[in-house]
């Protein structure tokens, strides 16, 4: 690693903290209904949306009403993306003349974007029309992210409000997240990305006569707008097949830095928003600290693995699947950030990472996408781990488990366990199914342990709503399209519904002031416990599977074995 590479990483994290405070504070005001700098412009837009939809944004909902509105909205969104894909051949804005998408792939893609996974079993430039990209995918990039933010805000209200029955209004949270947070950030980022060379037009593909007389068809389209929100909303679904490795999607080191920064920005800032809303920014920093420690720990291992010798090739740094302009360090930094936050965009091909680096990428997702995680999703996942930690710590020292003055009881723990177990079970059981069936095995591109890693990564990515891949795996088969789609549904709503149920049961409790018997949740000790619980749950659940994939591959690689 050169000094410049270290400097890039330091600047990356150094810039994060002040931005977290500014954006986090802004979001706290937005979701508390206070006036902000942008209210003059955006408030009429917000009110207009309520009027168009015919909803009363001031009507308070209990957790069941909130969850029902959320589910109906998301299922309808799935339906629209599915319909647009199947019918795109007969719809406008299709200059490349692409035909309708077949149903299993359309199911997978619609699920993928609705659940904020943005797994791509298709190649954007050769499968989807401009209309499908804009009115299907771009829209879900916004609203799936806004859905995640809404859930964590509702859960926060559940923890803050005392002896109440309601946790807010879904329509209000959804619209505010979209209008006040995502839209302005995405607009600004999109224009800056265009300045670096990201394309934004409605032209047909351009035919090029290359210097050596070959023809090259350069894809075109409204890419920058979608790329900005795919980075900010932890979506990650590329406009192009090669995602942010594509020079039209990520042309310069500066565009790379900004896109990479956008991955962590909102998930990290939400921890500060949370602290503000619960009335103690320390509560937010504790969570931020635990997330940062886990991310940096993983990053260090990945960097060490990627820069150590590969005896199979006799070189140190494998440039396979990496771009010259980014180099090794930036590829690994992005790889760590995109898997920790459930973004899933890539600026290098994870399948060609060294085994251990690819393994950490997988582990980042397996921990439950709580290391910053998806926008909103990471924090509500983390709060579920906080509740588990409070409970376990309480059991160990014989104190009543309390969080923010409220008792943690059987119902909350049951829901927390459901939210942890459902995605994990989906990953392990579906991977096992694929690993013993012809339909699952025939899609592999690599043999040996790496082939197993491809399958394990796919289900991990789907259930974690991440969307990155060991992309050699041919995932566009009915088997993978359907099973991975299923894993995405489980991974999304198997956590959202328990989280809202916890909000519903916590909101009705009364809060007691802290007593000498209260276990403080703002200490370094608590950060350590929280990290330990996350690692132990993740390690116990997934170590056997990781041993069969990346771990054994690393050992065999060190012995010089190729497959």
């Amino acid at each position, binding site marked *: 690693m050169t000094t410049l590479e270290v400097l890039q990483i330091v600047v990356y994290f150094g810039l994060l903290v002040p931005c977290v405070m500014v954006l986090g504070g802004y979001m706290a005001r937005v979701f508390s209904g206070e006036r902000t700098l942008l209210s003059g412009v955006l408030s009429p837009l917000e009110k207009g949306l309520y009027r*168009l939809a015919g909803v009363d944004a001031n009507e308070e909902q209990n957790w069941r009403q909130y969850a029902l509105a959320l589910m109906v909205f998301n299922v309808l969104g799935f339906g629209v993306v599915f319909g647009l894909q199947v019918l795109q051949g007969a719809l406008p804005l299709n200059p490349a003349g692409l035909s309708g998408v077949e149903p299993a792939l359309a199911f997978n893609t619609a699920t993928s974007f609705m659940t904020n996974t943005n797994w791509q079993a298709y190649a954007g430039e050769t499968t989807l029309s401009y209309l499908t990209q804009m009115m299907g995918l771009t829209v879900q990039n916004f609203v799936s992210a806004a859905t995640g933010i809404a859930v964590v805000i509702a859960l926060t209200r559940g923890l803050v409000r005392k002896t109440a029955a309601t946790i807010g209004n879904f329509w209000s949270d959804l619209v505010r997240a979209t209008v006040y947070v995502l839209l302005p950030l995405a607009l600004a980022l999109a224009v800056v990305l265009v300045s670096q060379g990201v394309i934004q037009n409605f032209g047909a593909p351009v035919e090029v006569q290359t210097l050596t007389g070959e023809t090259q068809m350069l894809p075109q389209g409204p890419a920058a707008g979608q790329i900005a929100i795919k980075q900010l909303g932890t979506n990650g679904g590329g406009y192009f097949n090669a995602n942010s490795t594509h020079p039209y999607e990520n042309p310069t080191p500066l565009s790379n830095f900004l896109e990479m920064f956008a991955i962590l920005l909102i998930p990290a800032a939400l921890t500060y928003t949370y602290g503000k809303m619960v009335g103690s920014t320390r509560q937010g920093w504790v969570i931020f600290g635990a997330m940062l420690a886990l991310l940096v720990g993983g990053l260090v291992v990945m960097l060490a693995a990627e820069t150590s010798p590969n005896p199979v090739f006799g070189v140190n740094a494998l440039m396979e699947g990496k771009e010259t302009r980014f180099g090794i360090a930036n590829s690994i930094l992005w790889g760590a950030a995109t898997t920790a936050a459930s973004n899933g965009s890539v600026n290098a091909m994870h399948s060609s990472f060294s085994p251990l680096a690819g393994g950490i990428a997988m582990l980042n997702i397996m921990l439950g996408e709580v290391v910053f995680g998806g926008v909103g999703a990471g924090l509500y996942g983390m709060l579920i781990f906080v509740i588990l930690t409070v409970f376990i710590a309480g059991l160990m020292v014989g104190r009543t488990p309390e969080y923010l003055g409220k008792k943690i009881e059987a119902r909350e723990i049951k829901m927390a366990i459901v939210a942890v177990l459902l995605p994990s079970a989906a990953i392990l059981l579906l991977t096992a199914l694929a690993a013993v069936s012809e339909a699952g095995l025939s899609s592999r591109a690599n043999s040996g342990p790496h082939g197993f890693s491809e399958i394990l990564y796919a289900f991990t990515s789907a259930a974690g709503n991440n969307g990155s891949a060991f992309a050699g795996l041919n995932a566009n088969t009915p088997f993978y399209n359907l099973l991975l789609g299923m894993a995405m549904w489980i991974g999304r709503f198997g956590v959202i519904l328990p989280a809202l149920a916890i909000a519903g049961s916590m909101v009705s409790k009364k809060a007691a002031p802290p007593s000498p018997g209260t276990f403080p949740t703002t200490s370094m000790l608590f950060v350590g416990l929280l990290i330990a619980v996350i690692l132990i749950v993740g390690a116990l659940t997934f170590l056997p599977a990781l041993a069969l994939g990346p771990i054994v591959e690393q050992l065999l690689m060190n012995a010089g074995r190729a497959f």
Partner: protein
Amino acid sequence: MWKQIIPALRMLVALTILTGVVYPLVVTVAAQILFPAEANGSLIRQGEQVVGSALIGQHMNADARYFWTRPSAISYNPQPSGGSNLGPTSATLQTLVEERRTAFASANGVSEAAVPAEMLFASASGLDPHISPEAARLQVLRVAAARGLEATVVEALVNRYVEEPQLGFLGQPRVNVLRLNLALDGLQS
């Protein structure tokens, strides 16, 4: 149930108009006014003919008169883009790398140990427009000989086309191969 579905549907339509129509159009208008060349693909024209994009690499490796780009899993055909996704213990990749090493070393008259990593391994997008300055310098003698130029002239051109890290610290030093090759052609036209 209709009481739930109607507002959800209306909200979806409203947000689709906002984020799926208005937003991309606003971005497009801003992009086309502020950065028209970039928004339309950074295309390079010679007369009427588009000869390439400043951002997209081209397949060069059959012609000794040009600097070569990196290996590409898609032979620089961007429909669609992508890498090989071969893993760190792939025997297939091992064979490919040995072939590339021998080919580059013999074509450019350098030792096999001197071939830089990015000329052995395929890029992620398959469209990488850059190579390292080192990889360009190793090709100077071949290109100069094939064109009947002084090596020092070609070397000076390479040095002129080395791009340093952006803002002084972001990314890697690199050479845009298409720009360099166009400049080479320009020397002799």
